[in-house]
């Protein structure tokens, strides 16, 4: 490590004021602080600082996303094989198929997003902020696997610039950057982003996997429900077998890559809650809200809204609900920031997600829109909570004056 440290020290003059690589100072600084904890010490106020910093926070979130990512890779290969009607599905080739299908998406998201972050940091002469480390992995996880790479690049660039950087960067954004990327794709390219084909990888990669015929259809469970007609709801997998609640929990079903496995989301939730990085208040209240709304919808079930046939538990297991509850709603920057506000915010996400899903057949999945809506309302919720504190102070003052 000593030699690496010396090497960095020898490089630094090139990046400082007057050096020929001065325009890359932020990038150098970013890599240097990534490799070595800065040895800058406190110059005012407290003399010691907590070991926790935003790098640690972000890396824990990334670690908590790894089970979803790895499972999603396997499931990508698995769905491709199932759709092709394969009789045996060997583990490693299936995983590597998914790995090669997903990798370009991760690379595109990181290159585009971090490229913009680095540029903006340099323009502002600031340190590079770590927020995109998480966003860059979330984006491939919540987008359909067949999203064209150029669309992914456009959507990522749009949301990093217009949702984050114009507001001032990490910590100042109103909306969750990864979700806006998804919403941008959904609304800008509706034809390509919905329907039956986009959620299952359909071509061979490096000789792995199967080429699917053009006639193939692979609707996600929620897609099937939205277009369901009849009075006995059954959700089918790609071989037209019924998907059980247990299948939905494990996640070997079609869907966006990261969100199908409730089990892996749960592992992530355990990591986030054990380390105290994500708010248990938000997670809990999203789930309570989803269950409550799912229960109400289920009581008043009607063929007009086939989503109401789902039991409250199934509402949590299908689609992106669990993923949104654990990884999206808990984004501390865009969520409510007050303790009480977090409960209200979480309930709102849970209720609205199921509400959209069940009562709006145009949108089979409501979790994304619910979180974005709650993002928009979070400052209002916080304002009301803070105002209660202000009113208490005013009342106290008036009481003193009158006595």
């Amino acid at each position, binding site marked *: 490590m000593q030699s690496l440290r010396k090497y960095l020290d020898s490089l630094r003059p090139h990046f400082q004021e007057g050096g020929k690589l001065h325009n890359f100072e932020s990038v150098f600084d970013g890599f240097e602080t990534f490799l070595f904890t800065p040895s*800058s*010490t406190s110059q005012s106020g407290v003399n*010691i*600082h*907590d070991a926790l910093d935003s790098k*640690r926070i972000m890396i824990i979130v990334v670690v908590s996303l790894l089970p979803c990512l790895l499972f999603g890779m396997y499931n990508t290969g698995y769905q491709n094989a199932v759709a092709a009607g394969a009789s045996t599905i060997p583990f490693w080739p299936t995983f590597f198929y998914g790995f090669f299908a997903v990798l370009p998406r991760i690379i595109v998201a990181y290159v585009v997003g971090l490229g913009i972050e680095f540029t903006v940091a340099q323009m502002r002469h600031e340190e590079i902020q770590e927020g995109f480390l998480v966003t860059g992995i979330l984006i491939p996880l919540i987008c359909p696997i067949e999203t064209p790479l150029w669309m992914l690049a456009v959507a990522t660039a749009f949301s990093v610039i217009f949702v984050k950087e114009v507001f001032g960067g990490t910590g100042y954004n109103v909306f969750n950057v990864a979700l806006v990327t998804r919403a941008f794709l959904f609304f800008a390219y509706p034809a390509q982003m919905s329907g039956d084909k986009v959620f299952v990888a359909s071509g061979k990669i490096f000789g792995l996997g199967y080429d699917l015929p053009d006639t193939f259809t692979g609707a996600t469970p929620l897609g099937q429900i939205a277009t369901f007609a009849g009075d006995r709801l059954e959700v089918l997998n790609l071989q037209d077998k019924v998907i059980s609640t247990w299948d939905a929990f494990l996640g070997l079903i079609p869907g966006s890559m990261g969100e199908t496995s409730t089990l892996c989301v749960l592992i992530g939730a355990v990591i986030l809650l054990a380390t105290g990085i994500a708010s248990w208040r938000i997670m809990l209240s999203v789930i309570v809200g989803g269950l409550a709304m799912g229960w109400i919808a289920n009581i008043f079930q009607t063929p007009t809204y086939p989503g109401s046939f789902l039991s409250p538990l199934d509402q949590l297991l299908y689609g992106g609900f669990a993923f949104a509850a654990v990884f999206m709603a808990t984004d501390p920057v865009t969520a409510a*920031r*007050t303790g009480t506000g977090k409960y209200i915010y979480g309930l709102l996400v849970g209720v609205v997600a199921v509400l959209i899903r069940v009562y709006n057949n145009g949108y089979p999945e409501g979790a994304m829109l619910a979180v974005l809506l709650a993002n928009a309302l979070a400052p209002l919720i916080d304002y009301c909570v803070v105002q209660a*504190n202000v009113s208490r102070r005013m009342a106290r003052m008036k009481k003193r004056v009158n006595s």
Partner: protein
Amino acid sequence: MRKTYKLRKGLNLSLEGAVDPGTPAVSPDHISAVAMVPDDYPGFLPKLDVKEGDIVAQGAPLMHHKADEEVKLVAPAGGVVRAVVRGPRRKIERVVVEPVSEAPSAVRFEAGTPTDPAEIAGRIKASGLWAQMRRRPYDVIPFPGDRPRDIFITAMDTAPLAQNLDTLVADRKEDLDAGVKALGKLTDGKIYISVATGSTLPDIEEAEMAEFTPLHPAGNAGVQAANIAPVNKGEIIWTLDIVTLARIGALYTKGIVDTECTVAVTGPEASSPKRVRVPEGTAVKDILAGMSVTSDHHVRIISGNVLTGIPVPEDGFLRFPYRQITLIAEGDDRHEFMGWASMSPDKMSVSRAFLSKIGGRKFSPDARLNGGRRAMIMSGVYDDLVPMDIMPEYLIKAILARDIDRMEALGIYEVAPEDFALAEYADPSKLELQKIVREALDYLRGEIEA
């Protein structure tokens, strides 16, 4: 019957290098110099009463307050004024006094308690003790015409590695009673004395006694006030600690200006934690005498505790209001590879994101920031560490926006920088909260009182 307050918000940092409370306080053989630093008394605008070469008695004025000539800062020890150190724009940074044997005898007052409030205030001002009190709003020395609603006295210091305040005044009951009697003439309200649960400090006549669980920052007088009777807009309270109260009492019982204090030398880098008895403002090297500070790495000498204390150089001085020296590693000579990924159990953190959370360990932190400065990302970090009915995050945001109405609405008059020290320690975004609050209080005072 003492009322007990159980505060659940707060944190006691577990650091290496505590001093055993039973350690007797010794006086060093030699005091080379004492210094009076006007910056340690926020709101005090210094004007010199002495010049270099003058010989002063212990308790004699060195400086007076520009806004009220009666308010003095006095010499902690008798001797020769060795230096008046000035900074940029001729600002007085400190007045250094070198104790000599031919100094005149210490300043004395007539014993016995006067009853006239003006006379009481006059003596407190002349003895330098007025400047040792604080008033809220603004956390500055009391204004000349203040008539505080209540006075809050803390008899507990919950800061990391601090010594118990009540043991420092254990044998001064008479002084404490006299102090409360004198201060009682300066307020129409009550005088509250807050002790840690289980404290053996006897009840003081004419004072309201309260008990707080010793979870930092419950020892801050302002936190106690916020839980007993919070400051409202338009009200004034004074805060001081029990040692200052005993000193005020001594003005009347014995007629002396008490400038002695017991200092704890603590911290992970202190080879043998100890307690010494020295005048206020004593040179750090006299306090550390007999303790080797030089080692193979840089050491930070903090006058005070790790949260609110001031780093001082080796030839620096003990600063007011601290009765503690803490020695920690500076850390600027450490290069840690990928520290953010560390699984080391030595990483000190409030959060559960590090393995160190397991087991009740003691830590030896250094002065590094442990990360870069960022915008506020995590929410609710401050809330659990500020045991007052305020919303710290929103108050800080109102301050940064310089929005006076919003600051008032969110309780700026109730707070002092020290109340935010723990939050500043824990903040993963490494914001300088104490500095932010101090600047806000100064800004408000400039806008409103001018």
